[in-house]
């Protein structure tokens, strides 16, 4: 009986820790259901009558609808391109082991370790020169490129975990390279595809700097709209900011809930595949 009680106390403590970390996020979510006066009230309002006005206002704004559509189209297309390219590359690195594998994997990883502010300058110059600035194509390909390095790392980790016996069996049964790759090996690394998707979508969905510099006013994503559209002549438009932040956050929270076990794999590029 005493042990039971201790266990309950322990679980309550864990919940308290989790909720403490969630509190600032919760405050943003609550603000989205407040009026502007309530958001800026002193002392802060902990109890209030929730209103959906902010969301009504939000969905009536063309800028928001465009940004939301852009975000969805851009991040999903970038993910599809990145994962296809990465799977092919990871397969090559894992199975055919070309000479410069180690070096190429290093080059890929180092791309993503560079601070965004450093790569945005040359990228801006190149995009301006090639006329890719403010085009969907340019932004999609950029985000795809940004997702490739980690996806290759994640997928190579998974492919290395698939026994080469599968390849041999396929080969003995007369399957060509393509059949082996797509019909035999691909189904074995579905978890890797999901992990690559989860990790990169979190990054791409929230990315601001490149979207802002390369997309400009014409191709705005949600984070860019969050940063640039919420200023008004009379200061910040807090209800707009809060409701848009919530719309930006909810899809990721849902992904986080349903695909939690892939988060660790993704965040460590497949180098750590233990359970949490």
């Amino acid at each position, binding site marked *: 009986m005493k042990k039971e009680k201790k266990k309950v106390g322990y679980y309550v403590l864990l919940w308290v820790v989790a909720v403490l970390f969630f509190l600032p996020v919760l*405050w943003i979510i609550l603000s989205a259901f407040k009026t502007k006066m309530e958001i800026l009230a*002193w002392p802060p309002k902990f109890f209030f009558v929730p209103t959906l006005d902010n969301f009504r206002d939000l969905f009536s704004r063309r800028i928001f609808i465009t940004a939301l559509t852009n975000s969805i189209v851009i991040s999903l297309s970038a993910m599809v391109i990145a994962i296809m390219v990465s799977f092919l590359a990871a397969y090559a690195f894992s199975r055919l082991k070309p000479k410069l594998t180690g070096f190429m994997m290093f080059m890929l990883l180092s791309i993503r*370790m560079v601070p*965004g502010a*450093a790569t945005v*300058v040359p990228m801006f110059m190149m995009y301006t020169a090639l006329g890719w600035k403010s085009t969907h194509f340019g932004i999609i390909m950029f985000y795809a490129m940004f997702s490739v390095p980690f996806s290759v790392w994640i997928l190579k980790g998974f492919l290395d975990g698939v026994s080469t016996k599968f390849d041999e069996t396929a080969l003995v049964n007369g399957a060509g390279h393509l059949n082996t790759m797509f019909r035999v090996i691909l189904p074995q690394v579905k978890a890797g595809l999901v992990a690559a998707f989860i990790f990169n979508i979190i990054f791409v969905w929230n990315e601001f700097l490149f979207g802002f510099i390369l997309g400009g006013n014409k191709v705005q994503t949600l984070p860019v709209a969050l940063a640039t559209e919420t200023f008004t002549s009379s200061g910040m438009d807090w209800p707009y900011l809060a409701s848009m932040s919530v719309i930006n956050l909810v899809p990721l929270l849902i992904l986080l*809930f349903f695909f939690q076990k892939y988060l660790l794999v993704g965040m460590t590029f497949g180098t750590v595949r233990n359970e949490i």
Partner: protein
Amino acid sequence: MAQVAVPEAGKNSPARKIGRVQQFFSDDKRFLLVILLPVVLFFLIWNALPTMWMVGMSFREYSLTSATKIAHFIGLDNFVYLITSADTWSALSKTFLFVVGGVFFETVLGIMLGFLFWDSSKMPGRRFALTLLFSPMVLAPIAAGNYFRLMVNPNFGVINYLISLFNGGKAVELLTNASLAFPTCLCVDIWMWTPFMLMMTLAALGSVPKAELEAANIDRLGWWQKFTHIILPHGKYILMLGILLRTIDCFKTMDLVWTMTTGGPGNSTELLGIGLYRVAFQSLNLGRASAYALITLLIAIAFTSIFLFVLNRKNSAEEA
């Protein structure tokens, strides 16, 4: 070559086409080249090209505000300017402080909380609780930065309200005070990324074999001995990877701090990324910005090499 397709395939039938495709890929080298082509193209167009552009520009005087806009060669002047400029060193030392402070607290807190969550596998609603716990990581830094600016505002911020309850009703200027702005930004970063180190700690703890822990319990080892003799040898590489990843990411921090303070007040929160952004897009001096970027690139490559070194050690330790 294409004539010797699969025998049972008729003319122009889909099977015959597949046969051709297979034939094309039957050569190992050709297959390798084709599946590596997309990634190589990506690399060349979106990395090699801009990087070379950057290297070329870093030796030139090129400013979007100059009347001529012609980039003429000035040798190492950009680098000399940056290395002798106090701003660069101030940004470097602030970034260093930010990285050391952020990573230290995230690691210590993350490990402590990770140990707390060690035995949580049967916790009711665990998945939901972990979603809440990890939510700071998926909040857009732009949203977090903007909203923290409101929350610490001395006139209507909830955090400042809580501070005022313990401070005799007086709110504190956090972001407009040159000595407090930096620690405030650091705290927000710690809040966002401690869950990551917690997650890594859980993974590290998960890699410790149960049998060894049971043996340690039977031998009545103290917790410190258990930590140094059993948990660390198994979990240290995962923890080191976590710390390195945080170091690299912390080094890159920009949009969070930018939205909270835009580098101010004065230059008290001007990190490397923000300094670079200013040179490039406020002074519009792209030549100097390229040199700046090249310097940060070299630092980042150094970090990456260390990361890979640890990763290799981890892999060889697991194979042994």
